[in-house]
């Protein structure tokens, strides 16, 4: 609750900062303070929350439990790290720096709603608050045609799936007479209302769009490639994790008892997402586009947490969200410092910037899921949940084979950095504070791989 209000207020304050503070560097400093304050508030909320009784707010429309608080804290932490790492890059995107940060704060507010909704209206509000600022951020680089294309494409497709979501909610309301996700008791009877099933399907499709799952993933590469890199880093990580938790809440809490009706569909979507994401990523020449497809592939793994209805899946979602966000944000913050976004742009980076190359290697190993990195533990948790669920071993083995394919495209970057000759040209100076921050991110990735329970708290 405090976090939702704080994110909104800080967002408004941030917007006004733009009016009074003209120096961009100072705006970034204010933003850093704002995000630190938000992180502090989420930590405070976790500290004072009681584990047993979740807070019920606004006529029970929000149900903020300890899981939601913990996840909010993790996401606020990742965003703080993101702002530290890429604040300067956000500054270079355009003239409205304060607004960009304000929009990011609003997105976080949407995510906080998504982690704590108990009512489908709140779900809808959360999704929209999260999405609309993204359409603006995608088009932030106004003079760039690709950025405009990304924004328009994202908006049109997003609006369409929002329609689907509303349709789904309407059908569910028609079937149950309620918007409260904990009230869908009638669904547990033998005779299922076809209205409800159709509603679930509609909602499934719209969520699949938000998390860029196949077959509604088409927007992802263009939007992620076209948007300014600084915002791609945010949209493809923290926003995706937030959307996934919204997905998880609805399908486990509200539709968990119906899992036999939708589990197969989710499993097939998972398999298709893994296949398309990984195989297409192999053929990319641009690292930024490869990361876009890799984000589809990683979404495939996160879908395991949806498909497996058990407690491990909830844990896995946190670990995966954090591990994937840290490594991808780290990757993007290295990428943005390079002039050339193709694989060749990385040639010889190890000679020129050994520290940067080393950190990139750790991030890539994590994305590929090599032990002792967060990525391994993330994959482990979600696959563990799937094996516990039973009947999904084929999917687990398929996913692991796909992980082996992912080694191909992640390692191409490592090969370029270490084993190829070249002059990796930097677009911006790399100073020691960048290196320290990347080092911290790297340390967190390894800590997550060595002691994941620290990131789970009491969950």
């Amino acid at each position: 609750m405090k976090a939702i209000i704080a994110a909104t207020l800080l967002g408004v304050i941030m917007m006004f900062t733009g009016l009074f503070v003209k120096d961009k560097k100072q705006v970034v400093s204010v933003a850093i303070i704002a995000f630190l304050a938000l992180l502090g508030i989420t930590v405070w909320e976790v500290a004072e929350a009681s584990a047993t009784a979740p807070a019920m707010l606004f006529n029970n429309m929000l149900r903020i439990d300890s899981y939601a608080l913990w996840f909010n804290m993790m996401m606020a932490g990742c965003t703080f790290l993101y702002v530290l790492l890429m604040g300067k890059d956000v500054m270079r995107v355009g003239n409205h720096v304060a607004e960009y940060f304000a929009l990011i704060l609003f997105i976080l507010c949407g995510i906080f709603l998504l982690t704590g909704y108990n009512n489908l209206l709140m779900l809808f509000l959360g999704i929209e608050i999260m999405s609309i600022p993204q359409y603006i951020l995608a088009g932030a680089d106004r003079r760039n045609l690709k950025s405009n294309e990304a924004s328009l494409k994202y908006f049109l497709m997003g609006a369409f799936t929002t329609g689907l979501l509303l349709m789904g909610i309407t059908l569910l309301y028609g079937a149950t007479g309620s918007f409260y996700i904990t009230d869908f008791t009638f669904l547990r009877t033998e005779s299922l209302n076809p209205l409800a099933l159709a509603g679930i399907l509609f909602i499934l499709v719209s969520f699949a769009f938000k998390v860029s799952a196949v077959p509604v993933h088409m927007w992802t590469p263009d939007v992620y490639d076209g948007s300014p890199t600084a915002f791609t880093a945010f949209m493809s990580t923290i926003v995706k994790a937030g959307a996934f938790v919204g997905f998880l809440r609805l399908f486990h809490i509200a539709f968990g008892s119906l899992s036999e009706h939708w589990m197969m569909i989710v499993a097939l979507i998972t398999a298709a997402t893994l296949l398309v994401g990984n195989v297409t990523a192999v053929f990319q020449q641009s690292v930024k586009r490869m990361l876009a497809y890799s984000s589809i592939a990683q979404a495939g793994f996160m879908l395991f947490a949806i498909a497996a209805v058990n407690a491990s899946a909830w844990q896995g979602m946190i670990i995966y969200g954090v591990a994937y966000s840290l490594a991808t944000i780290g990757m993007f913050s290295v990428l943005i410092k390079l002039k050339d976004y193709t694989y060749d742009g990385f040639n010889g980076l190890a000679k020129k910037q050994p520290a940067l190359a080393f950190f990139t290697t750790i991030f890539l190993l994590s994305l590929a899921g090599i032990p002792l990195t967060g990525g391994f533990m993330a994959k482990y948790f979600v696959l563990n949940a799937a094996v516990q669920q039973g009947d999904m071993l084929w999917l687990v083995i398929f996913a692991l084979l796909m992980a082996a394919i992912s080694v191909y495209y992640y390692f191409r970057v490592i090969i370029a950095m270490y084993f190829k000759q070249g002059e990796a040209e930097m677009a911006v100076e790399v100073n020691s504070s960048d290196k320290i921050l990347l080092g911290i991110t790297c340390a967190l990735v390894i800590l997550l791989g060595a002691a994941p329970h620290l990131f789970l708290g009491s969950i």
Partner: protein
Amino acid sequence: MILILLILIPLVAGIISMFAKGAAKGIALFSSLATLAVAILISTDIHSGAQISWSMPWIPTLGSEISLLADGMSAMLCLLVGIVMPVIFITNSDKEVENQGSFYGLMLLSQAGITGVFLASDALLFYFFWELALVPVYFLCSIWGGEKRIAVTFKFFVYTFVGSVMLLAALIYLSLQNPGGNSFAWNNIVRAGASLPADQQQWLFWLIFIAFAIKMPMFPFHTWQPDTYEQSPTPVTIILSALMVKMGVFGVVRWLLPVVPEAVAFWSDTVITLSVIGIVYASLLAIVQTDLKRLVAYSSIAHMGLMSATAFSDTNVGMHGLMVQMFNHGINIAGMWVIISMVEQRWGTRNMKELGGMASTAPLMTIALVVIALANIALPLTNGFVGEFMLFNGLFVSGSQYHIVFMVIAGLGIILGAVYTLNMVQRTAYGETVAMKTGGDLAASEYIGLAIIIGLIILLGVYPAPLLQLTAGVSGLMMP
């Protein structure tokens, strides 16, 4: 507590050497000697059947802890690591390596990973080390390897990674079968696996086995091996062939045979058949090689074939022989690579057609080559004889109805082994003399390294009792 030292010493020394450019060589040698001392200390504590174990909590949520266990097999393999690493560092001590801090650092990190594999008695920890051993080796081969290194080592990495993920799937499944909640402890994995119905054991068997078969490597999963051995720098080739392939055999003995016993009984004939095919196939290929490195690479596949066949023979003597031969093979092949790298340095080629007359230009080197070659074909009085004799004995007394056929075909491999090994000795040591390009006979550091290896070959050939005693308890433990 002493067990964790075996992993910590190379780990810490490895990280230090990464930053200690000039001193890296000294740090590496010193730390490897320190681990050798610890390994010897541990080995003396382990008499037949005795064990040392140590554990601390790690990830309670997953039912996994950092638990290490040294029985005869682990201690023997740690001893092998402890001997081979100093030999590598000693023979390499007067050679210059580019970027030497990272080189020795990565070598030590891979040592830590390999030792961890041999000591872990928690499945998740085992998997961690299994992969950790691989990553430094990947970088070692790709940075310091030969011309085609990038493509070759990439193939190697992807190949073994595919195997590893299969293993991971099986381990996750097994860890969930424990009645009291998730557990990765070796005991619980074994209990869980053995209590599963036969049809589930069948597919678990293949998931686990493929990972180990790729690592060994066993026919038909061996295709990465000759290229990788050829392209890697010699110190890394030694790590790969003397130590890392043992991870595969070790994995079979500790994490496959006791875990899915019914499936092992069902598939053992298939595996032994593949193994003996591998022996003959690799030996035939070894005969036609002209490159020394490739020849030894194929010869290694043949030797590993005999080991994997006997690992599935389900006999005590075979299992005991396997332990002995794992050690001996590691020593012998390390010696072989040391000599080949010396040949390459001095003559600038590994092609046997362009070599000859080493006996007159470098007599000491020739003596070493002949002794190691004889050990390679298991002549009596060399260590290879003791191991291979026991392996054949095990294969012969095994319960399989085809045991005679297996014996005969595997025996054919031994004869072929003599053909290519002696042929190699003849073509390099005798015949028309080709003048050396640089250097002379053994340098002091090489002399010491080879003396250690030859000393062990003869000592263990004449008096194998210490090795036999150390590993005596293993077969009983592993086949409940």
